[in-house]
């Protein structure tokens, strides 16, 4: 398994813990991630401004992967949605591809051949590696940990571009990926709620009101951490957690982890090498469990 690693704008600056743990886990699983200096913004931010600009930006990234002869491996779900959608429409619609290629060639001198596919890390783990192979790699069971899975909207939607992967109304892949580590994936009512990240740039007040219900429900459920796989969701649930919960409980603390960090722990890596020191919200409960996990290692 060999992919072009597409980091996007946010992860390599704000979520080095996600990148670090993703790279370590991939390496251990024999997934080769190839870096490129040529990738840029996926195009998502321009969708509301100019649909064609966004599509051209996405196509430019697909061309970078085309030149590497590889499919794309993503970490951010917003990038995943944008690049997947672009690859599906451009790969299938030859007339549109021609049209876009005329403009792309004018701007960059290159054309897209319609061959590249896009895969989010969790989808690669679920589909290409598979739960059985992952189970073989579990060295330290996370039995006793309780996590709440948050599915980034663009990990699964719009469902027509994800070719039947998972179920947008009852998603289960991230829950299964959590359970393979021995941890419990807690079921909860607000599971499908959007983080609000899409509104943050336009209206902070509206955006910051959106993560509250989920954070409250999960804290009441007594989980150890919210587990996600997207830097935008992380901005809303972790980076802005204090502002989101200010009026409800100024001392509110619910740790947020990236799935690759959870999997890394179960594969026997230490919290330190998985970048846990960069997770902003700490809790005594989680720290105690992590220390116990480390102490129990042979």
């Amino acid at each position, binding site marked *: 398994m060999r992919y072009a690693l597409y980091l996007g704008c946010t992860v390599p600056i704000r979520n080095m813990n996600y990148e*670090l743990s993703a790279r370590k886990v991939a390496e251990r699983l024999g997934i080769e991630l190839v870096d490129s200096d040529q990738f*840029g913004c996926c195009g998502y931010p321009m969708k509301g*401004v100019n*649909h064609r600009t966004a599509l051209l930006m996405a196509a430019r990234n697909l061309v970078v992967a085309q030149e590497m002869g590889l499919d794309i491996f993503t970490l951010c779900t917003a990038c995943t949605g944008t690049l997947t959608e672009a690859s599906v429409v451009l790969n299938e619609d030859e007339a549109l591809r021609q049209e876009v290629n005329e403009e792309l060639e004018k701007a960059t001198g290159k054309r897209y051949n319609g061959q590249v596919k896009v895969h989010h890390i969790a989808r690669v783990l679920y589909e290409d590696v598979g739960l059985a192979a992952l189970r073989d790699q579990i060295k330290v069971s996370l039995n006793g940990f309780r996590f709440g899975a948050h599915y980034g909207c663009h990990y699964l*939607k719009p469902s027509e571009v994800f070719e039947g992967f998972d179920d947008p109304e009852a998603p289960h892949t991230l829950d299964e990926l959590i359970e393979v580590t021995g941890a419990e994936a807690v079921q909860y009512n607000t599971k499908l709620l959007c983080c609000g990240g899409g509104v943050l*740039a336009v209206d902070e007040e509206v955006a910051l*009101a959106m993560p509250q219900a989920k954070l409250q429900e999960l804290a009441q459920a007594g989980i150890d951490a919210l587990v996600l796989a997207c830097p935008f969701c992380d901005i809303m649930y972790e980076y802005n957690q204090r502002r989101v919960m200010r009026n409800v409980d100024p001392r509110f603390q619910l740790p947020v982890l990236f799935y690759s960090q959870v999997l890394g722990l179960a594969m026997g890596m230490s919290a330190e090498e998985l970048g846990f020191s960069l997770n902003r919200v700490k809790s005594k409960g989680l720290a105690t469990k992590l220390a116990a996990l480390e102490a129990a290692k042979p």
Partner: protein
Amino acid sequence: MIESTQLDPNFKDEIANEPGGEHILSCFTCGTCTASCPVRVVTDRYSPRKIIRMALLGLKEEVLSSDFIWLCSACYSCHERCPQDVRITELINAIKNIAVREGHVPPAFRVQVDLLRDHGRLIEIGDYDNERRAELGLPAIHEQPAEVAEILKVSGTIALGAAAPAPAEDDAK
């Protein structure tokens, strides 16, 4: 009271001709979209069904100059549930694209256009960031703005920026 002079009966066709807006005429205003919308839960200012109703009625100026069209979080909940396959998330994007062409651009997006033009990405990479990356054993990232800036130019978006282009080497003042 809506005066008929404020109505533009062609607005719905304009939307239907915009990529993403094609299915607007299939809406039978059932309200499933609004009932599914997480933005609606936190603010009354937003309702996808109402936006579609207003658009079908021809309230062009009111829709295009509104703040509320920019409140969609693009979660696709409505998109998955709409019984008429209206593709609301893309439809709202189509309306936004028309609004931008008519000069209604939220300041945040003007800033983003400039960032993309100058850095090729939304978050600038400083030396400090690459030093931190090196400490963690992660490879350095280099900005690649040239092709992105050309794309912004070719697709006519570059002019929406908030600031003048970065000064060229020869003469800046």
